[in-house]
């Protein structure tokens, strides 16, 4: 009836490397995003047109989120955070295109995203505080918290993976089940909910990434502590 949502189909082999459908879809999304960005930024003017105003609104909104959540200047983090948000959003919404499975509904893509966040936290933390300063953040608030903090660093990454994967995959899965049951018009409200969930999950993933990076970068403060305790 339905294939396992946990396995990927291999489309073709590039030498010894198996290219799965997820990777192909990701390439398509990349091409679309880059092309869209290139076209949108090709003729930027000081006096913005309507499209340019919308683009700048999106970028300014992301910058504002970074500034609010991390409490630091958004310039070094804007490409990473913005790309994460745009890519996850595009990937989540790509499930609306018939015959395309969202890349974020595959464990490998989510793991890749969480891995990037994991290393970005370390990179930005070391860049902002130095190696020793970054390692000292594991001893906050007390010395005995070191094992808990180390474990938390991995569990929160795993939590990122599973949250995004579970939401997107379950959405696509439910839509597939309902499609197989009812057919024509019934899945449309579920698709609407899926749109909303996709946007929210993209936002949550980005915000959590910002919180992790911010807690590593910022001098002190309990920012995002409630998100960190969340599994």
């Amino acid at each position, binding site marked *: 009836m339905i294939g396992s949502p*946990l*396995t*990927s189909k291999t489309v073709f082999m590039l030498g010894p*490397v*198996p*290219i*799965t459908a*997820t*990777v192909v879809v*990701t*390439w398509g999304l*990349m091409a679309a*995003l*880059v092309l869209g*960005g*290139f076209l*949108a*930024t090709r003729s*930027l*003017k*000081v006096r*913005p047109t309507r499209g*340019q105003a919308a*683009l*700048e609104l999106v*970028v*300014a909104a992301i910058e504002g989120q970074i500034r609010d959540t991390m409490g630091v200047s958004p*310039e070094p983090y*804007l*490409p*990473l955070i*913005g*790309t*994460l948000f*745009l*890519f996850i959003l595009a990937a989540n919404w790509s499930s609306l295109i018939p015959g395309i499975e969202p*890349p974020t509904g*595959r*464990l*490998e*893509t989510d*793991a*890749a*995203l969480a*891995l*990037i966040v994991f290393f970005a936290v370390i990179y930005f933390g070391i860049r902002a505080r130095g190696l020793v300063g970054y390692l000292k953040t594991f001893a906050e608030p007390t010395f005995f918290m070191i094992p808990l903090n180390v474990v938390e660093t991995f569990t929160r990454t795993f939590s990122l993976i599973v949250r995004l994967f579970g939401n997107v995959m379950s959405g696509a899965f439910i839509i597939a089940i309902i499609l197989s049951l009812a057919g024509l018009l019934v899945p449309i409200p579920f698709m609407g909910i899926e749109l909303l969930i996709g946007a929210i999950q993209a936002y949550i993933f980005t915000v959590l990434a910002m919180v992790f990076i911010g807690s590593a970068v910022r001098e002190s403060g309990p920012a995002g502590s409630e998100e960190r305790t969340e599994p």
Partner: protein
Amino acid sequence: MRIDWWTLALQTANVLILIWLLARFLFRPVAEIVARRQDEANKLLADAAKVQRQADNARAGLEQARADIVAGRDKLIADAHAAAEIERLALLARTNEEMTRLRAEAEAAISRDRVAMEKLLIDRASELAVEIARRLLSRGAPAGSVDVFLAELCQQVRASSPQERAAFTREGDGSVEILTAAPLSPEAAERARGAIAEALGGKPVLVFRSDPAVIAGIELHSRYAVMRNSWRNDLERIREELNRADEPAKPS
């Protein structure tokens, strides 16, 4: 459960490449254009601020000028006041001085006039006294003698106009009184009657009467006319003269 490690690696690479591409083609141009617009806005603001500063400077200069003008005006007013005060004081002093001087002059003139007048009066009085004395003394005759007065009276009568004489001699008008200081002796009376009748002419009715007020001399009193040659008459004339002489001296 099977993780496709190749897919994981490819996806990681894909996302990294996407981050780089989007940073290259999306975020950096947008950030640049935003920064450029911010620069232009800042430049505009700076220009506006510069213009405002210039305006402020100009206004400050104007206010300074106005304050200078006000200060100058105040100073002018104060100077004018001071000058007017000085002028007024000087005028006052000059006026006071003038008034004092005028008063002094007036007082001097008054006193001088008074002195002169007094001197004139004294001169007059003395002159009059001398005249009185001279006249009285020029009679020569003794006071009791009527003859001298009679002769002069007769002369006077003769010198008078006929109408006056007729007033004495008119008929039916009573008598002509011959007034003397003391009653005359009969021969003296006879002499006087003859002389007067002769002087008057006609036939006057002559009556003798004595009156000490005459002092000395002889007087003719009729109903209509009087002819005098007596000290009383002389004294009265002298008094009249003195009165006349007093009049111009009175206003001082």
